[in-house]
């Protein structure tokens, strides 16, 4: 609060006022059109006070930022060169001859998108005009008269996202993105990092924690475009009333322009670092979404300071999207549940209920209509993949094989096959029933060490296929091992091959989890495998081969039901202690005085491969 008061004093000081009036003289027309909200003088003072690395941000909020040519560079990001495909002069010289095609394209897309979408997109554009971030509508003649012959048109089209419509300004089609030279890459904080933030704070304060969120209003439109580039961003929008294409000038950073991403992100990052350093807040952001981890007692005060601070520097937050701190918060599309943090030291990350409902509805519709075109398959996989990130371990990923195949199939193939039906039903089942992703803040016990291996030796007297496993409990320093001659009945459930090494190596893993189910419960495990293909499949939670994928699925189901935090890594064959048991050679185990455990193959037979291929 004291800091906030100091800021308020600084904001109203004569020095700030004098500098601000100097700044206003530098403001570009785009910045003026956007309303000149950022208090750049105060931003400059605060930037110096808190040693913010990117000192150019306040000035750039005055002068605007370009979207073609070489990208501006910020000390916040690291170097990553992607050259432009065409030069700016090529962009400009080709603009006149592309104009007619662009107008035709916008008209066509406006008409084919349907009346409802066209109306929504038009209304959105007019809303922007009212807000001052765009101006128009203009005719082509008016724009040519104003901007000259190098005027570049950007086609826009509508996209339905749930119940809402979004206007996309296609800067790739306008060739603007081809003329954009990228110089840096941005690594963004996402769900994993927020979990890391919560974990660190949970360990530091050992109490309850809440998460609150803030969102910048019309984020990109708070950052001005360079005046000289308004002419290359004249946006063409379909007007459903006049059934014609009308043109608009845009003054903020346009969605769809490649450079708009780093241009906006550096402003958002600047504000984020300012909040951390000024208010010692554990806050981060993904584009315009800010998330803060807070202790309940301080939550209200910190959120108040952050809101007021944003107001003072003139970056506008969207009050409607603001989420008060709580122990169940929706952040970046997932639900963070911190309710068990204090009592069980457990952070749960759950799917957002609306996302689950949405996916189930799509699957039901696909099943009812018996129609899954490749584009919808891709969309479904994207949605399901995102939901998988909220499931325990890598559970759930195994069931997507048939839908993946459809994703890359022929556009005319839309009928559902038996495999696709199973895949869709499993996706639904996993989405609704899979255990949630969790993060244990403390795990004082040392991890259990598990080694698995398999052998396939034709003509071996005891049996051709053998799997083995060794478990070490570092707390009790006990070593136990198991081994099982895999009967032909099991191998026959896999697709016929000359050798079954990959399947056997995979099969050894769920077998080991079932065999030591008493010990392997709610523990951390390091699993060492000497077969890279099997290890990679388990680490990914998926295999392109259907029979292997079922085994991977079995493994993760076993792991999730026993709440095992498993990390999979490689061991070279000659260092793998499970190599002996997998060859029915127990000399090393006897020398180590290891304990024999009978393999538990029951679950293998109660849930054969068929669970995966047909429900």
């Amino acid at each position, binding site marked *: 609060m004291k800091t906030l008061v100091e800021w308020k004093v600084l904001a109203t000081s004569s020095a700030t006022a004098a500098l601000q009036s100097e700044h206003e003289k530098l403001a570009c027309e785009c910045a003026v059109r956007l309303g000149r909200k950022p208090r750049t003088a105060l931003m400059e003072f605060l930037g110096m006070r808190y040693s913010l690395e990117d000192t150019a941000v306040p000035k750039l909020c005055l002068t605007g930022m370009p979207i073609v040519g070489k990208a501006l560079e910020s000390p916040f*990001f*690291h170097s*990553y060169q992607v050259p432009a495909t065409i030069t700016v002069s090529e962009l400009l010289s080709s603009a006149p001859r592309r104009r007619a095609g662009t107008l035709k394209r916008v008209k066509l897309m406006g008409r084919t998108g349907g009346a409802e979408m066209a109306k929504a997109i038009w209304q959105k554009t007019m809303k922007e005009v009212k807000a001052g971030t765009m101006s128009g509508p203009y005719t082509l003649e008016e724009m040519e008269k104003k901007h000259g012959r190098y005027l570049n048109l950007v086609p826009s089209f509508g996209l339905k996202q749930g119940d809402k419509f979004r206007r996309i300004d296609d800067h790739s089609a306008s060739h603007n993105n081809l003329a954009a030279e990228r110089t840096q*890459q941005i*690594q963004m*904080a*996402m769900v*994993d*990092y927020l*979990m*890391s*933030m919560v*974990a*660190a*704070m949970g*360990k*530091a304060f050992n109490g309850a924690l809440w998460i609150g969120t803030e969102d910048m209003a019309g984020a990109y439109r708070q950052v001005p475009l360079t005046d000289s580039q308004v002419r290359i961003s004249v946006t063409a929008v379909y007007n459903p009333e006049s059934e014609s294409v009308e043109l608009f000038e845009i003054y903020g950073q346009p969605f769809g322009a490649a450079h708009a991403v780093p241009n906006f992100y550096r402003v958002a990052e600047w504000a984020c*670092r300012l909040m*951390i*350093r000024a208010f*010692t*807040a*554990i806050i*981060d952001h993904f584009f315009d979404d800010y998330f803060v981890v807070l202790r309940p007692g301080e939550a209200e005060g910190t959120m108040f300071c952050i809101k007021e601070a944003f107001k003072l520097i003139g970056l506008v937050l969207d009050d409607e999207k603001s989420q008060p701190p709580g122990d169940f918060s929706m952040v970046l599309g997932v639900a963070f549940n911190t309710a068990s943090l204090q009592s069980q030291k457990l952070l749960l990350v759950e799917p957002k209920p609306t996302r689950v409902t949405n996916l189930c509805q799509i699957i039901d519709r696909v099943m009812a209509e018996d129609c899954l075109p490749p584009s919808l398959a891709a969309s479904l996989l994207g949605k399901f993949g995102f939901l998988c*990130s909220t499931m325990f371990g*890598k559970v759930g990923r195994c069931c997507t094989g048939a839908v993946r*195949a459809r994703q*890359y199939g022929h556009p005319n193939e839309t009928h559902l096959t038996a495999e696709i039906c199973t895949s869709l039903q499993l996706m639904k089942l996993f989405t609704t029933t899979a255990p949630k*992703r*969790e*993060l*244990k803040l403390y*795990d004082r016990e*040392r*991890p259990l*060490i598990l080694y698995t291996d398999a052998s396939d030796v034709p003509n071996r007297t005891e049996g051709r296929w053998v799997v083995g496993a060794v478990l*070490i409990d570092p707390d009790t320093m006990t070593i136990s091992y198991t081994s099982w001659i895999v009967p032909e009945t099991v191998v026959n459930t896999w697709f016929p091959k000359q050798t079954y090494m990959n399947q056997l190596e995979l099969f050894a893993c769920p077998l080991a989890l079932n065999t030591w189910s008493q010990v392997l419960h709610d523990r*951390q495990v*390091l699993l*060492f495998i000497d077969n*890279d293909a099997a*290890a*990679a499949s388990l*680490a*990914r939670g998926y295999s392109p081969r259907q029979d292997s994928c079922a085994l991977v699925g079995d493994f993760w189901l076993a792991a999730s039901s026993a709440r095992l*935090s*498993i*990390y*999979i*890594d*490689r*061991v*070279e064959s*000659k*260092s*793998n*202690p499970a190599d*002996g048991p997998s060859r029915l050679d127990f000399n*090393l185990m006897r020398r*180590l005085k290891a304990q024999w455990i009978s393999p538990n193959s029951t679950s293998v037979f109660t849930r054969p491969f068929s669970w995966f291929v047909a429900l």
Partner: protein
Amino acid sequence: MSKRGRKRLIDDTEMADLSANRCWERAEAGKAFALEHPGNSLAQFLPSWERLMSRPDVHVIKYHTCRFEGSRRRKFQMLMTNRACFVDFIGKLCEGHLCMRTGGPHLKWRPTVHNGQVLQSQTGDEREYPVGFCKEYAKAAGLVLGSGGSFLEVFSGPNAPLSVEVGALLGAPVPGYKLENKGKGDKVELQNLSQLLGSHPLVSQQASSFSARAAPTISVQESFYRDAALNAARQPGYGKRTQLIQDGLQDPSKHMEEALKLSHPFTLGNVLKPDHREAL
């Protein structure tokens, strides 16, 4: 199938059909042709290939590349032609574990892997026809062409070694110079070192340093967020992980000893940005 895979399949099928159809046309016109291809390729089941192979004047000659100087891997290939003289020069198969030409073992096909990372795939070495094959082919081609024939190689690759040999035999050298692969020597050395892995500790050590060099470089920020994911109980992709215990121990007891010293990667500690650490 991925988009890229599908495109490759379509392109390859088109090339295979084109080759078979052109050969068919030449055979119909009584002109000589030779079509070389992997022996187990699915292309031979294309209708155009089946049609060509069913011709009574066409010989399908199967051979292993290792039977020719310059090849150390047993690669199964086929040569389809309507001239019988190729059969004796090319139709050489290699049977048994040891190479019938060198008497030694064949080089392995599996990729060179060290510490769980693929250092090199071996297919690059087999990109061009072996020198010995080109020489034998040229001898047969010389018989077919006589003194006044012409020779054209389609899909020859940048160095066209077959054309070079045939041209040399006919006294018509192929112009241009050989395209050398940059860093090829380094790769060969790396490959040789990797094949010796485990046999000598020094070699193993050297290969480890090569492995470090071969590993893709990632930025500090990228590495930071990867660690954050690990800290949030998410294992990275298998290829992106850092192996907990490096290869080379070659002893189960030692590996167990090392494993017992490990902490679980999900609880390695706080992964926080400096600002957040400071604020905390």
